[in-house]
């Protein structure tokens, strides 16, 4: 339906936003959200310990469902006499706030952000469960390979995985916003 008056039409046109300015805004929002979310973790330690326990229980129960005998106690798993403590770095918490900060800072519809956050955090949780199970298996059967994967590979793969999730979501978000 045509609107009367040219001024309304002119106002409804998209403003020209320079790519550099959009990027700068995104970077500032991202840095602020990351800092804020991280500070919540720093000053609310209950979040970290709850996620540690949840990670331990979810990994332990999954292994039991796969008929792998494993003992779960607080934030530790015991398998074949090897005790594996799930420390904060073994959880998906930091990677999750990284992904969440990037998605929340991106200029798109709140619904698309919410869907991205839910799907992304679920994906990261599952990825991290797999990572911990692999590390646990290596700790029992091949301690040398465990050290290599734990010290070198795991951090880099996690970062690449977060980027892959974000880029995939970005493509979906922009495709939806453009429709």
């Amino acid at each position, binding site marked *: 339906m045509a609107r009367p008056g040219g001024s309304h039409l002119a106002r*409804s*046109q*998209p*403003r020209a*936003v*320079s*790519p*550099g300015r*959009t*990027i*700068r805004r*995104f*970077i500032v929002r*991202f*840095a602020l959200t*990351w800092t804020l979310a*991280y500070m919540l*973790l*720093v*000053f609310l*330690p209950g979040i*970290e310990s709850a996620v540690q326990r949840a990670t331990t229980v979810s990994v332990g129960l999954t292994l039991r469902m796969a008929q792998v005998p494993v003992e779960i106690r607080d934030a530790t798993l015991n398998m074949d006499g090897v005790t594996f403590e799930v420390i904060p770095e073994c959880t998906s918490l*930091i*990677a999750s706030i*990284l992904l969440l900060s*990037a998605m929340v800072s*991106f*200029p*798109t*519809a709140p*619904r*698309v952000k919410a869907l991205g956050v839910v799907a992304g955090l679920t994906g990261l949780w599952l990825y991290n469960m797999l990572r911990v199970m692999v590390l646990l298996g290596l700790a029992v059967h091949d301690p040398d390979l465990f050290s290599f994967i734990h*010290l*070198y*590979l795991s*951090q*880099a793969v996690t*970062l*690449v995985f*977060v*980027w*892959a999730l974000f*880029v*995939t979501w*970005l*493509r979906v*978000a*922009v*495709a*939806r*916003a*453009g*429709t």
Partner: protein
Amino acid sequence: MTSPGLGWSARFIAWAAVFFCVYWMSSDRYQQGLTAVLQLCLPAVGLGEVVIDRVQIYAPSEIGVYAAMCLASVRTPWRRRLGALAIGAPLLAALELVAVLGMAAAAVHLPKHVGPGVARRLADFPVNTVLLVDASLVWLALLGATEIPFLRSGSRAKESAPRGSRR
């Protein structure tokens, strides 16, 4: 949204695998060097009495990730990509040093004020930021405008779409 995005991801993963090998082979020596430089810088932040045996922060994995991002880029000419690498890599190394200095200062000074648990998490903040965030932000700042038209088009789509019109 067609193949360039997917192509970027595949190239990024391939380059990341190459730089992972470099990181794996150089990490110990790199962190020894970082420790030596850090030891020289500690007096500047009032920690002259602190002795650090060894820094273990997964460095320089983030520089490898950054290099992979630069080399995987497609929309920017090679010369600019290499320029971004030449500017960004030393910048990330400098940020690493600042982060480790911040970590050391937090580990020494904070426990008296906030308790050991909070101090540990606060001390980890600069290092986690350097390792997980800085490479992406430097890449976005230097190459993002040409490499990610998503950001520009996403912003415009949001501004131009009437409320409730998005599916």
